[in-house]
């Protein structure tokens, strides 16, 4: 139960369905209602609209009170929604008519309205006890205290917290809107002109969306505080946006992420402070923090766009290219020395082969070493003793070189390297004959392309360049050795 967690042991959360259940339900409903609309706000770059609206409704609340003279939530709701919509319209109008930057026009409108609201509340202070603080924090913890009796078909009249009832209705309205007008919303969001030309007004969709955002913001902040609305409108949607490219999936994901954050946030609010010897804290704030946590996870680990997967992919690509280059380099050296001396001997002539290769491939010795080891492990390279080959070639062998082990391509390695070099030279040929590239630049371009060229593309290049024997630099293009008739 909230506030009395001191008796709980470290990990067990004391959970009272009658209290915590309703609180989490309210948070989840707020999350789903907001996420449904939030996706469109994020995609339309109107994310801060919720923030602006929920700040600006203050004068609406005050005016509703001053006019109706009652604190009944119906009047308050109406006043707040009207001012909320007005905020959106007004900042739109200033943006369009005054050619003021969108953010700035929003800033002007909502700060001025907020100030006006504060002053109205102070002026009416002796007659109204509106607490502006409540607008910021909300009072989600008191959700279970204020109930309505709702007739439910099977259960009969049941006590349900007012907040839950209101948010359920708002959620249903939003879900119906998004469900019924999904196609229109999608079109209006991604291509407003297409939408208008295909017979419905993108503007109308825009205004309905703004109105619903105002309704959702008002309904939510009344019970859960304005900060939670802003968080739920923007953060789950942005998180989902990082995870998928499909709008439908994005909306579903946003709702799930929002709801999960609401639940996790409440658990955290009840549990975490007790670790440090405090009582539980504001649930709404913690729910917002939980959405932030989910967002951070997505930024870091989203399979396609996450920083870590991206980094790993980049490293993997670098590694593949390096290993390819090592193979191809060995092949080229073998090729050069084919007629005169065995490859191993030529390599041994290099004082430090690894350093030389690192130099040629613009990397460091360690990377070369690991690449060679990797190839050896995969059976692409074997290490041969340089000494023996020197002896057979009949050149002046020196004793101290007998222990030098140099990499040498195996059969498998050679055919693989041959394929790479073939790709490279075919590309060079292609670039010269078909694209008219400058001779000095083709090596670099071919070098980039060769790593992404498979057998099929090779054959295509071969065909398009009329199966040449030599590349533009005069080196022979290896034939496709594994051609089957």
């Amino acid at each position, binding site marked *: 139960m909230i506030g009395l967690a001191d008796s709980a042991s470290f990990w067990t959360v004391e959970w009272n369905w009658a209290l915590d259940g309703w609180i989490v339900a309210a948070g989840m409903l707020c999350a789903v209602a907001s996420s449904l609309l939030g996706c469109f706000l994020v995609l339309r770059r109107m994310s801060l609209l919720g923030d602006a609206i929920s700040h600006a409704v203050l004068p609406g609340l005050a005016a509703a009170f001053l006019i109706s003279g009652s604190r009944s939530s119906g009047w308050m709701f109406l006043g707040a929604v009207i001012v909320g919509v007005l905020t959106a319209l007004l900042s739109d109008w200033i943006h369009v008519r005054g050619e003021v930057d969108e953010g700035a026009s929003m800033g002007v409108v909502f700060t001025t309205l907020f100030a006006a609201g504060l002053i109205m509340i102070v002026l009416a202070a002796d007659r109204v006890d509106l607490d502006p603080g409540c607008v910021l924090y909300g009072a989600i913890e008191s959700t279970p205290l204020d109930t309505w009796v709702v007739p439910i078909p099977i259960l009969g009249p049941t006590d349900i917290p007012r907040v839950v009832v209101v948010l359920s209705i708002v959620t249903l309205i939003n879900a119906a809107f998004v469900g019924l007008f999904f196609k229109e919303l999608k079109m209006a969001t991604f291509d407003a002109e297409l939408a208008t030309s295909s017979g419905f007004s993108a503007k109308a969709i825009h205004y309905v969306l703004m109105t619903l955002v105002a309704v959702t913001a008002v309904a939510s902040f009344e019970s859960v505080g304005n900060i939670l609305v802003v968080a739920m409108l923007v953060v789950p949607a*942005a998180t989902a946006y990082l995870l998928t490219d499909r709008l439908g999936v994005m909306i579903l994901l946003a709702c799930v992420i929002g709801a999960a954050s609401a639940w996790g946030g409440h658990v955290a609010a009840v549990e975490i402070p007790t670790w440090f010897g405090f009582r539980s804290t504001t649930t709404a704030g913690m729910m917002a923090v939980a959405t932030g946590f989910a967002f951070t996870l997505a930024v870091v680990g989203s399979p396609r766009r996450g920083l870590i997967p991206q980094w790993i992919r980049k490293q993997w690509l670098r590694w593949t290219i390096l290993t390819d280059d090592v193979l191809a380099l060995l092949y080229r050296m073998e090729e050069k020395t084919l007629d005169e001396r065995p490859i191993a001997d030529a390599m041994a002539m290099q004082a430090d082969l690894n350093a030389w290769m690192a130099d040629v491939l613009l990397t460091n010795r360690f990377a070369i070493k690991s690449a060679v080891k990797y190839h050896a492990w995969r059976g692409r390279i074997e290490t041969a003793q340089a000494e023996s080959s020197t002896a057979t070639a009949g050149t002046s062998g020196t004793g101290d070189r007998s222990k030098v082990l140099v990499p040498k391509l195996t059969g498998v390695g050679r055919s693989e390297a041959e394929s790479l070099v073939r790709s490279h030279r075919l590309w060079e040929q292609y670039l010269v004959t078909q694209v008219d590239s400058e001779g000095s630049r083709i090596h670099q371009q071919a070098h980039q392309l060769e790593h992404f060229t498979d057998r099929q593309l090779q054959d295509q290049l071969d065909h398009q360049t009329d199966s040449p024997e030599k590349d533009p630099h005069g080196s022979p293009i290896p034939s496709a050795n594994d051609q089957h008739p």
Partner: protein
Amino acid sequence: MPEHLWRVISLQDHNTRVVIFGAAMLGLAAGLVGCFTLLRRRALVGDALAHAALPGIAIAFLWVTAMGGNGRSLPVLLAGATVSGMFGIASILIIRRGTRIKEDAALGIVLSVFFGLGLELLGIAQQMKNGNKAGLESFIYGKTASMVESDAWLIAIASLICVVVCVGLLKEFKLLCFDEAFAGSRGYPVVLLDAALMSVVVVITIIGLQAVGLVLVIALLVIPAASARFWTDRLVWMMVLSSAIGMLGCLVGAAASAMLPRLPSGAMIVLTTGVGFLISFLVGARRGLLIRMWRRRSLNASIDRQHLLRELYELFETDPNRLSVSWDELVQARSWSNKRLRKILEQASNDGWVSENITKMEFALTERGESEARRLTRRHRLWELYLIHHADIAPQRVDRDADAIEHVLEPETVAELESLLNAELGERRMPTDPHASSAEGVEA
């Protein structure tokens, strides 16, 4: 009341003096800095930043209190706010650069998550033995009226530093705002400059936070700059005006709340600057609503007049023997409504372009009108010719395209067109109508 008023206006109260001085300095610096953030399209960065400062304030308070110090001392809290504000800015930049999330969503995320964390920590601070969070809450709503002399000096000095930085780096900031890529290519340290600008924003936000509160400091950064934009297109003037508006708003607002002590001064300040915005929006000399409407109306009127003259000229051209044109012919010529045509004709006859015979509803060009009409028609045809020969636009469509731009052709442009089209024109001064000429060619 008059006595009280006099006391405020003559700044007799030490306290009033302090508050008004502090607020005015803040308004001046915020107005200046706001210009740059507005032009960089980052108007609401202050919003995110102000919210992001809250957890820092709470952590500083918790930490120092736990260490046994005075957690409510202002320098400590401001230091905490600055650090967490910087974290907020860094998060925004990381989100913007590292992901495909746009600026607005990045602001929203940082704003709500940091603020949620701040509320969380404030909730905990409240549970501490001496943790009455009343002092901390002033950051959310501000406490202008209870500003003491040392606060005012702090604000004044920090504001002055910001002004000096902005003025000193004026050229660099200007380039950063208008053409970041160009600045980068010219070798300016763009990232460093951006960081400098953001630091100035952080400083203003943090000191404003304490003075007018979280929501309202955004107003000081946004409203004066947005208002100044209506008056001028020049950055330096905009900066001067924006500072003046910010300062004036703070002066008047603070004075008003000093006269009516019940009114929260932060809100009064924002409301005053809001009024300044409204005035600028309506009557701003450069882009205000009224001046725009007037400009559009006069442009429309001149376009209508030009169309009328050209229409008349062409009617007389096709039939050189006729003396006048009837109303019905004119109504049919273009899609003018009766009312509009009546107005255009009235105006033209008042200006002495057109002579009319009211009873017969017949119209003709005056001598002056004819020379003007010839000039306009010539311009239109030159432009049409140019479009046909040099922009490959079909003769059927060229009339509309020419219409769209001919009204803004300068005399130099006309001269240039003429020289370009010399070959086609030969020695004739009036090019033939491209639409009519093809028809004539068929007849001949």
